[in-house]
């Protein structure tokens, strides 16, 4: 187990290094950072000064090592647009994204797995067929369209839910939360539903497929024959085994969650990291883009390694050498 974790960690570091090289290349070769920093109308001498002060006259490997060194210390340079350190800019937006994603994941998981179990018990009941048809709609509806349709129905026509923004937030010093005000929670309903919708349908289908397979296994028949109550057979014997791959797949699809949070935040003008990224792309604000990529890579890899280790711990069938 120890060697397994060590190997996963080394792999993670290797991937981060590759990501950092790509980021460095983007930063160095996509457009001239000197022009971006010194301004279009700077004289030749001014540009040279900026170049020297940024260390851009040094050999390329020296620049790369400096980039890594700075990145490791959380220094990704300042945004070309707002002149604020890029990392601060992104971290300031982190709570909004985090809260949105958490609510969405919990929602998707509870409803998705719950109805997946329900559907698998009586696959041919008309109610369950309707749920399956709904889930087909769920995976066929791209997130951005779900969002727009929800806005149209609940914000424009019915006028009962707010269509954009985060509402009133409470400042806890290091963290601005929307969980503690009624207005904040109210603003969370539509974006969280939108973000949850896609994952919900996928989870439902995964759970149903897994349950249908497991329910025909011998040990489930044994459990029924022993006279165990249905609650125990379904949740303890069947669902537990189904949940292992379901949780793993959800964990490994974390990048998808980040991608769809960008879409959701854009539609609802949610003041999170994804919204910031899209604005930065429009404005060609490379330090922010690069910081976002490095941060996303770090988060995704961490989640992956945790999921892998948990998987190895939970599943006794797998022993890693």
């Amino acid at each position, binding site marked *: 187990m120890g060697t397994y974790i060590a190997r996963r960690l080394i792999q993670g570091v290797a991937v981060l290094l590759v990501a950092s090289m790509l980021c460095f290349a983007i930063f160095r070769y996509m457009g001239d950072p000197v022009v971006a920093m010194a301004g279009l109308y700077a004289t030749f001498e001014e540009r040279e000064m900026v170049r020297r002060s940024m260390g851009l006259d040094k050999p390329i490997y020296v620049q790369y090592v400096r980039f890594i060194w700075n990145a490791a210390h959380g220094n990704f340079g300042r945004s070309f647009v707002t002149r604020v350190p890029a990392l601060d800019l992104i971290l300031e937006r982190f709570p909004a994204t985090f809260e949105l994603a958490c609510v969405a994941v919990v929602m998707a998981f509870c409803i998705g797995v719950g109805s997946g179990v329900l559907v698998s018990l009586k696959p041919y009941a008309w109610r369950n067929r309707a749920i399956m048809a709904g889930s087909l709609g769920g995976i*066929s509806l*791209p997130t*951005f369209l779900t969002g727009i349709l929800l*806005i149209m129905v609940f914000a424009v026509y019915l006028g009962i839910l707010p269509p954009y923004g985060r509402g009133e937030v409470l400042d806890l010093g290091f963290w601005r939360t929307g969980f503690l005000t009624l207005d904040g929670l109210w603003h969370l309903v539509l974006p969280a539903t939108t973000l949850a919708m896609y994952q919900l349908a996928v989870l439902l289908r995964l759970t149903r497929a897994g349950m249908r397979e497991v329910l025909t296994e011998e040990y489930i028949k044994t459990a029924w024959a022993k006279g165990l109550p249905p609650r125990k057979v379904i949740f303890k014997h069947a669902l537990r085994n189904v949940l292992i791959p379901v949780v793993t797949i959800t964990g490994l699809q974390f*990048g998808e969650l980040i991608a769809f949070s960008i879409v959701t935040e854009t539609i609802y003008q949610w003041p999170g990291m994804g919204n910031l990224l899209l604005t930065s792309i429009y404005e060609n604000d490379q330090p922010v883009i690069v910081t976002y990529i490095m941060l996303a890579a770090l988060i995704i890899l961490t989640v*992956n390694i945790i999921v892998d280790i948990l998987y190895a711990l939970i599943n006794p069938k797998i022993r890693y050498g």
Partner: protein
Amino acid sequence: MAERRIRSRLLYSYLRDPSAIAGSIILFIFILAALLAPWITPQNPYDLEKLTLEYFLTPPIWMEDGTAPFILGTDDQGRDILSTIIYGCRTSLLVGFGVVLIAGTIGVTIGMLAGYYGKWVDTVTMRVADTLFSFSTTLLAFLFLGVFGHGSVFIVITAICIADWVRYARTMRGSVLEVKEAAYIMAARATGATDLRLLLRHILPNAVTPIFVVVAVDLAVVIMLEATLSFLGVGVPLTRPSLGMMIANGKQYIYVGMWWMILFPGAALVMLVVGINLFADWLREELNPKIKRKA
């Protein structure tokens, strides 16, 4: 013999599955409309000569201010919505089939090599595949286009292919691992067949079946992804009609009740994807040996 029996069994179950038939008919209609676009649309929405601002924001024809020939109304530039949808489906299907073709070829090749040669080839490719997959096709395509711009349809296809081949490679690898242990492969090897011949003549045809399911599912996923990227403004160039871009455009008019600019392209997109998914669902049940044996 065996080949023919499988085919007729497939055809038999296909003809008895109304949702599979419905799905393939929908897909067929979309492909046909996309191919015939210049002849069946009343207006080429991207031919600037044909556009007049006189008819901008016309509602659908059955509403009070509706005007022929704009059956589904027009957008803020005076483009006919129905025509733009049909031209937009062209882009969707072009990107969809383009990615399936390119990513499929790359993925099947890599998966086959990884499964056949095993050892370090397998370890390295599957590690790379896992990593790309965890970053997700959507995120990588978005970041790639965000950084490198979006000059053409081909760049969009490339961006989606970066991680999309993984689906094919994984499925193919698993399938090859099963097939390569078969007795007939050993027999072929004993006759002195080269690796290349073994792979192309014996392993590929026997291991490729599960790939068809991946193709069907992937087509739907890629079409949605293209729409999403174009919606965010990093997809196909502005000079090309796209369902995602139409919806992004309509979003500005959401509060003033110009619903037709969003609902019609949205409905077209969902119908296309549902059609493909219905077909894919049937194909999956049909080609999955696990479910068959238990039924």
